[in-house]
């Protein structure tokens, strides 16, 4: 009945052109004499129209009195009446049959249901004074026991009566159109594009919300016979359930937190008892209360977990809940389309913002990976590595061609592995070890030093980001003088150890510490590369530390410790 409010019928600002008959005398049975103004109905019980309860009746009569004065007659020209009821009726005006709605019958078979909203013109010569309105009714086809069988009986300006609710319908259609368009867009985008479930849930949510708004206003938009009313109410309740279930599905999918399955299941289970709440408005209202509240709790948790984009959705739901608490009885009839549109817009804002943020993050990751790949390859194309290697190679060719030939093989091997691994985000440890050894072989020939790598307890199938130990090795070779110290000789032995403990893997890389010049306090490009690669694979779930172990010992060691989670699937391939 929301549109009655919306049309301002009950406002007292200007002299009314519509008035209602509030109370009727009611009698079960059927007698043509009951239509007559002269009939004495003072024995009949009198009820407010919307309180009339007639159960198991074949045919029953309602008699009410209409008071008209000349001023009202002048204002409300031409005159008509409107009866909103779950019944078929014949209307007698001052004893004369004036209009029929369906066919009134003593049995369900004899009755043909009338329109739920019934508008007719009244005679133009209706004078001032009291008029008797007698309604002969039957209501065999309701299909349920409604709280109200009759809603209103209005008399007044015919055009105004006939167009009551048009403004409401227009607003409803606009919001339903918007909701359905959003629904269609995201359903399409799921079907033909992203396959992202949050798209699907948002699409279905908007679709269900749009359908709910349309079905809710179907009565004003198209009208129907009163026997279909039960089906509309069932559809509204089902759609309300779907809207809330999809809302929960969307917010838990879009803003993932631990315990998602448990939370959604409990929320959905909580919606089930709503079906046993009496009255369709009660059912729908409770469904919204459960759906909005549980979604609100989830979004508040998401916000607490610093998923800032959840703020918009949370605001939308808070507004919806606020309106619901402010106008609990008119929410479903009058504010529903408004509430659902606002909610959907806020959900959309949240979704789009979160999507944009995810896309940016994804692009940043891709860009970082590409940069790391280039950085790794460039290190081996940069003149210092390449030209010194070639110079050493030409020297070996002139001095000992066999050594030169071996060096070419080793360089080829190193470049082959590098080309293979540089574009990947993780490689088996065995391959990393092979890369390190071929690099050491090249460097040993280039610098005429004895360089070795000792591997302790390594599982060659463990996944590691590419070239991280290779980079640590390069770093050590660049910043230490292994050939210069005559006391130790030009031998350097590097050590890589792998230790497993409580779901984590720890890698310890040790290099003999014979620094050239002072050790820089800041992190060099090598260590930055290692850190960036680890972040690419493990997010923030890793530890990297480096430093001199016992600098006063005779053979100090530079130790790098890398601690990462254990598990093949944590390292994206």
């Amino acid at each position, binding site marked *: 009945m929301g549109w009655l409010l919306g049309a301002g019928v009950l406002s007292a600002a200007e002299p009314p052109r519509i008035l209602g008959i509030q109370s009727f005398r009611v009698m079960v049975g059927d007698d043509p004499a009951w239509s007559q103004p002269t009939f004495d109905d003072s024995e009949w019980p009198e009820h407010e129209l919307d309180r009339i309860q007639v159960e198991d009746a074949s045919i029953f009569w309602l008699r009410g009195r209409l008071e008209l004065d000349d001023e009202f007659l002048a204002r409300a020209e031409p005159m008509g009446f409107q009866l909103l009821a779950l019944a078929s009726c014949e209307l007698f005006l001052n004893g004369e049959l004036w209009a029929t709605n369906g066919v009134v019958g003593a049995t369900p078979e004899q009755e043909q249901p009338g329109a739920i909203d019934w508008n007719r013109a009244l005679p133009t010569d209706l004078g001032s004074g009291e008029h008797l309105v007698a309604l002969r009714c039957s209501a065999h086809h309701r299909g349920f026991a409604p709280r109200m069988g009759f809603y209103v009986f209005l008399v007044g300006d015919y055009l105004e009566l006939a167009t009551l609710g048009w403004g409401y319908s227009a607003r409803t259609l606009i919001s339903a159109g918007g909701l359905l368009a959003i629904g269609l867009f995201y359903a399409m985008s799921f079907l033909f594009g992203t396959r992202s479930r949050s798209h699907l849930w948002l699409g279905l949510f908007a679709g269900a919300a749009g359908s709910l708004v349309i079905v809710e206003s179907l009565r004003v938009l198209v009208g129907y016979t009163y026997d279909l009313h039960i089906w509309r109410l069932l559809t509204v309740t089902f759609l309300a359930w779907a809207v809330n279930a999809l809302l929960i599905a969307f917010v838990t999918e879009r803003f993932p937190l631990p315990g998602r399955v448990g939370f959604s299941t409990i929320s959905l289970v909580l919606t089930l008892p709503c079906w046993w709440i009496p009255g369709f408005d009660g059912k729908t209202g409770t469904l919204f209360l459960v759906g909005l509240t549980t979604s609100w709790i989830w979004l508040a948790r998401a916000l607490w977990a610093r998923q800032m984009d959840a703020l918009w959705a949370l605001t939308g739901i808070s507004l919806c809940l606020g309106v619901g608490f402010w106008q609990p009885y008119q929410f479903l009839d009058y504010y529903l389309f408004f509430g659902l549109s606002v909610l959907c817009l806020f959900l959309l804002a949240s979704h789009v913002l979160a999507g944009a943020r995810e896309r940016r993050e994804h692009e940043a990751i891709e860009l970082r990976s590409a940069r790391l790949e280039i950085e790794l390859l460039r290190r081996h194309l940069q003149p210092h590595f390449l030209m010194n290697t070639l110079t*050493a190679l*030409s020297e070996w060719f002139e001095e000992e061609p066999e050594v030169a030939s071996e060096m070419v093989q080793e360089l080829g091997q190193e470049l082959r592995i590098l080309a293979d691994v540089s574009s990947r985000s993780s490689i088996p440890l065995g391959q990393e070890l092979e890369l390190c050894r071929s690099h050491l072989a090249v460097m040993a020939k*280039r*610098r*005429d030093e004895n360089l070795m790598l000792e591997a302790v307890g390594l599982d060659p199938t463990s996944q590691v980001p590419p070239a991280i130990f290779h980079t640590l090795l390069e770093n050590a070779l660049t910043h230490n*003088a292994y050939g210069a110290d005559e006391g130790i000789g030009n031998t350097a032995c590097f050590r890589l150890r792998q230790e497993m403990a409580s779901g984590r893997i720890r890698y310890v890389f040790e290099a003999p510490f014979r620094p050239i010049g002072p050790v820089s306090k800041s992190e060099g490009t090598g260590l930055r590369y290692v850190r960036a690669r680890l972040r690419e694979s493990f997010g923030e779930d890793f530890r990297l530390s480096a430093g001199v172990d016992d600098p006063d010992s005779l053979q100090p060691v530079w130790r790098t410790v890398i601690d990462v989670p254990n598990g093949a699937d944590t390292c994206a391939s």
Partner: protein
Amino acid sequence: MRVLVVEDEAVVARRLARMIRDIAGEELEHLEVQGLLHDAVDRLAEAPVDLLFLDLNLHGQDGFELLRQVVASSFHTVVVSAHTERAVEAFELGVLDFVPKPFSRKRLRLALDRARRHDTGPRSLRYLAIRRSGSTHLIPIDQVSFIQAADDYAEIHTRDGQVALHDKTLSKLEDLLPEHFLRVHRSYLVNLRDVRRLDNEPGSRYFLELESGQEIPVGRTRLPALRRRWI
């Protein structure tokens, strides 16, 4: 000839030493190889050399700081480096030659020949490096008006009247300086762009008057070259 090779890559250093010995032959008095920058600096402070072969990337350290110091020294420097993109910068600072890695015997011979015969390569010197109270200062050569010999050193006279002492001899500076610097006298190198006029006194003594009013004597044997280049 006394040669110092500063190179941290053992095999590359070996190649340089081997080839220098081959090419220089009997002329070579002494050859030494240093792998570390600070050792090389100490070595240069101890005893003079005639020619320095310098790698610009020693254990990841930028060798240009050392280069700025050595170009202010009395000896010539030949850079041997993989970083050819910095050759121009090195020439601007006053190196005699830039040998890119990987190098052949032929290329190294060219560098040695330049050192021995004062047969210079591209003259793109833009600064003269001066050692003054422990640090190195760069004087843009556009600011240099003339250079006067002072025993084993050279006095750099700038346009604004300042005088600075350079460790290189006048001959070595002549190797490096661009074409518009001309040796007009046994003891003078002049920036021809700074010359106002050529004058002669009775008795056929010639001299140049510079923009600053300074007069520079012109050697009789050097007069034809001056006339060719300047007039």
